[in-house]
C-alpha cells in the first residue's frame, strides 16, 4: 500500500465521519413501538415469573401445613406426654357405635342447659372432663376443657387449660368430630397424645397463653368471604390528539377537527366476588378469590371515519380503536351533527350522541396480608398481584344500551395489576367477620396491544364484605 492510497482513504474517512443524513420519521416510530413491545413483554414475563413463584410458595405453604399437621400427630414424645398427662391411663374405647352426646356433668348440675340445644355448653371439672357416650365407655381426658358446639356430633376441646383461659382465648384448639373420634382406639389415643404433646411444647416455651394468644390449630385456618366495592378509575394522562391522529392521519382529518372530538369521561366502576383467605400464621395470611369487575367510559359527541373502500367504520378512544359494526344504530339512534367528505372513499361524521365503552373482567388476586393490630378490631397491610381476564368488551350508544354498536379492537386478553391496601376486620359473630379494605390497584400493562406509551390506570377500591372462618 502506498501513501496515496492512505491519503485517499483518509479523505473518504473524513468525509464520511462528518456525514449527516436525516432519517425518515418512521424510524423513530418503529423504535418507540419496539421499545414499548419489549417493555410489555418484560413486564409480562416478570409477573408471570412472580405468579409462578407465588403459586409455588402457596403450594409450599399448604404442603407445609399438611405435613406439619401430620407430623404433630405422629411425632410424640412419650416421656414428655407422660409428664403432662400424668399417670392417668387413657381409657380405650372397645366398641364402636354411632356416637351421641348424652350428658355433661354440668348439664346434670344445671338441667336448664338441656333446652339450649343449639348453644355452646361447657364442662369443666377441675382437671378432668368426662364425656359420656351412648353405648361407649367413658373417655377420660386429663386436665381437659370440653365444649359442645352447635353441631350435635362435635366437641371442642382444650387440654391443659382452665375455662377462664379458653373463654378468654375464644379459640379452642380443635373441633373433634365424634364420628371419626370413635372410629378407632388409635384416633382417640393419638388425639390425646398429640394434644398433650402440644401442651408440653407450650409449657416448654413458657408462653403466656392469655397474653400472647398463641394457639396452634387456630393460626392456620381458612376464611371464605363475599365482598363488593365501588371503584374509581384514574388515568395518569389524558387522551391526546396524537392517538386520534394515528387513526385519522390517513384520512387527512384536520387537526382542529380531531382536537374538538377529544372528550372522554370515566363512568363509575364496581367489582365484587368471592374471597378465600388462608391464614399461614398468627399474623400472616394469603388471599385469593374471583372477582368480577365492570368499568368503562363515556365518549361524548363521538365521530366516525367511514372508509367505503373496505366498508369499515371506526372511531378512536383512550382504550384503542373502536370498530363500529352495527351501523344501522347510527342512523336510527344517533343524530348526525357534522359531515365531511375527505376523499372519494373516506368520510368523517360527527354524531350528537355519546358512546358507552364498557369492559368486563374476571380478576384473580394473590395477596399477602400482614396483621399489624391483632385485637378484636384488627388492622392489616396487604400487597400482591392481580391477574384479570377480559370477558366482556362492548360499545353501546349511551341512550341505547340494549344492543352493542361495536367493540374495542386489539385488547390485551390479560390485564395485570399490583395491589396495595389496608384491611380492617371486626368480628360480627364467633366465626363471622366484617371486612373493610381500601385498596389501590395499579395497572401494569396496557388495555390496548398497540398502545405505544404505557398507560397505568389506577383503581381506588373501597371493598366491604363479610367472611366466615372455618
Amino acid at each position, binding site marked *: *500500500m*502506498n501513501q*496515496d*492510497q492512505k*491519503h*485517499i*482513504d483518509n*479523505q*473518504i*474517512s473524513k*468525509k*464520511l*465521519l*462528518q*456525514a*449527516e*443524513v*436525516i*432519517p*425518515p420519521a*418512521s*424510524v*423513530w416510530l*418503529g*423504535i*418507540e413501538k*419496539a*421499545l414499548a413491545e*419489549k*417493555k410489555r413483554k418484560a413486564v409480562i414475563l416478570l409477573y408471570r415469573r412472580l405468579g409462578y413463584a407465588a403459586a409455588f410458595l402457596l403450594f409450599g405453604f399448604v404442603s407445609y401445613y399438611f405435613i406439619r399437621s401430620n407430623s404433630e400427630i405422629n411425632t410424640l414424645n412419650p416421656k414428655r406426654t407422660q409428664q403432662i398427662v400424668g399417670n392417668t391411663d387413657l381409657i380405650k374405647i372397645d366398641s364402636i357405635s354411632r356416637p351421641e352426646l348424652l350428658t355433661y356433668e354440668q348439664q346434670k348440675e344445671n338441667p336448664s342447659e338441656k333446652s339450649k340445644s343449639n348453644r355452646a355448653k361447657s364442662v369443666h371439672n377441675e382437671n378432668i372432663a368426662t364425656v359420656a357416650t351412648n353405648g361407649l365407655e367413658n373417655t377420660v381426658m386429663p386436665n381437659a376443657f370440653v365444649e359442645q358446639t352447635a353441631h350435635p356430633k362435635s366437641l371442642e376441646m382444650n387440654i391443659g387449660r382452665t375455662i377462664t383461659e379458653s373463654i378468654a382465648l375464644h379459640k379452642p384448639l380443635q373441633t373433634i368430630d365424634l364420628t371419626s373420634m370413635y372410629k378407632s382406639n388409635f384416633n382417640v389415643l393419638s388425639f390425646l397424645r398429640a394434644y398433650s404433646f402440644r401442651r408440653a411444647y407450650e409449657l416448654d416455651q413458657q408462653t403466656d397463653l392469655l397474653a400472647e394468644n398463641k394457639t396452634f390449630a387456630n393460626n392456620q385456618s381458612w376464611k371464605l368471604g363475599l365482598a363488593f366495592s365501588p371503584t374509581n378509575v384514574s388515568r395518569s394522562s389524558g387522551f391526546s390528539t396524537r392517538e386520534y391522529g394515528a387513526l385519522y392521519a390517513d384520512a387527512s382529518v384536520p387537526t382542529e377537527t380531531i382536537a374538538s372530538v377529544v372528550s372522554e369521561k370515566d363512568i363509575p366502576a364496581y367489582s365484587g366476588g368471592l374471597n378465600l383467605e388462608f391464614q399461614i400464621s398468627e399474623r400472616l395470611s394469603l388471599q385469593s378469590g374471583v372477582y368480577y369487575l365492570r368499568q368503562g367510559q363515556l365518549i361524548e359527541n363521538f365521530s366516525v371515519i367511514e372508509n367505503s373502500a373496505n366498508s369499515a367504520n371506526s372511531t378512536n378512544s383512550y382504550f384503542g380503536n373502536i370498530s363500529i359494526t352495527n351501523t344501522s344504530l347510527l342512523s336510527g339512534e344517533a343524530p348526525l351533527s357534522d359531515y365531511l367528505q375527505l376523499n372519494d372513499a373516506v368520510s368523517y361524521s360527527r354524531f350528537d350522541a355519546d358512546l358507552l365503552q364498557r369492559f368486563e373482567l374476571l380478576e384473580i388476586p394473590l395477596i399477602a396480608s400482614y396483621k399489624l393490630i391483632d385485637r378484636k378490631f384488627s388492622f392489616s397491610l396487604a400487597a400482591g398481584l392481580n391477574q384479570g381476564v377480559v370477558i366482556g368488551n362492548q360499545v353501546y350508544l349511551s341512550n341505547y344500551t340494549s344492543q352493542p354498536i361495536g367493540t374495542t379492537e386489539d385488547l390485551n386478553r390479560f390485564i395485570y395489576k399490583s395491589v396495595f391496601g389496608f384491611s380492617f376486620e371486626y368480628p360480627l359473630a364467633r366465626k363471622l367477620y366484617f371486612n373493610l379494605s381500601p385498596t389501590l390497584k395499579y395497572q401494569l400493562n396496557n388495555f390496548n396491544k398497540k398502545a405505544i*406509551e404505557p398507560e397505568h390506570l389506577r383503581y381506588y377500591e373501597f371493598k366491604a364484605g363479610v367472611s366466615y372462618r372455618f
Partner: protein
Amino acid sequence: MEENYLKEIIDGCKKGKRKSQELLYHQFAAKMFAVCLYYAGNKTEAEDFLQSGFIKVFENIKQYQEKGIFEAWLRKIFMHTALTKYREKKLMLLPDYKETEYLLDSNQEDVLSKISTNDLLCLIQQLPPAYRLVFNLYAIEGYSHREIAEMLGLQEGTSKSNLSRARQILQQKLAGQFEISTKKG
C-alpha cells in the same frame, strides 16, 4: 452539544425515560444514519440498522461509563449492529481475490473533494457487502487487517484482498462518474 445537557439526556435514558430517549435519538440520528448508510446496501437496510442500533443503545446505555466520547461509543454500537446483521445473513464467505494495487492521480483527489457525501455513500453502498465491510472497518474506523480478520472471521489475507478489491471498484466507479482515467498496477 453542551456536555451537561448530554449527560442529563444519557441519565434519563439510563432510567428508561422515553422523552430522554427521543431527545437522544434526534440528537444523533442524522450522524448514525450516515454510519448505517455506509454499512448498508441500501436505504431500507440502513433504516433497519438505525432502528436496531438505537434499540441496542437504549438497552445497553447503562454500560456506558461516561469515560470516553459518547458519539464514539454510539458509532461502535451501530458498527457492531451492522456486523451482526451481516453475520446473520452469512455474507462473509467470499473468494480470496489476489491483491491488486491501484493508483490514484491528482485528478481523482479532486474528484473526492468535489463528490458530495450522498454520492460517496451511494458508491460505497454499491460495493459487495464483504468488500464494503472491510473497506469501512479499515479506511473509516481504522482497524488493522488482523483485527478485521478476527471480527469477521476471515483470513488476514482475505481482508487485505477484499480491501484492495473494494478500492479498485471504488476507483472504477469514481472514474466512471467523473470520466477520469485510472492506472492499474
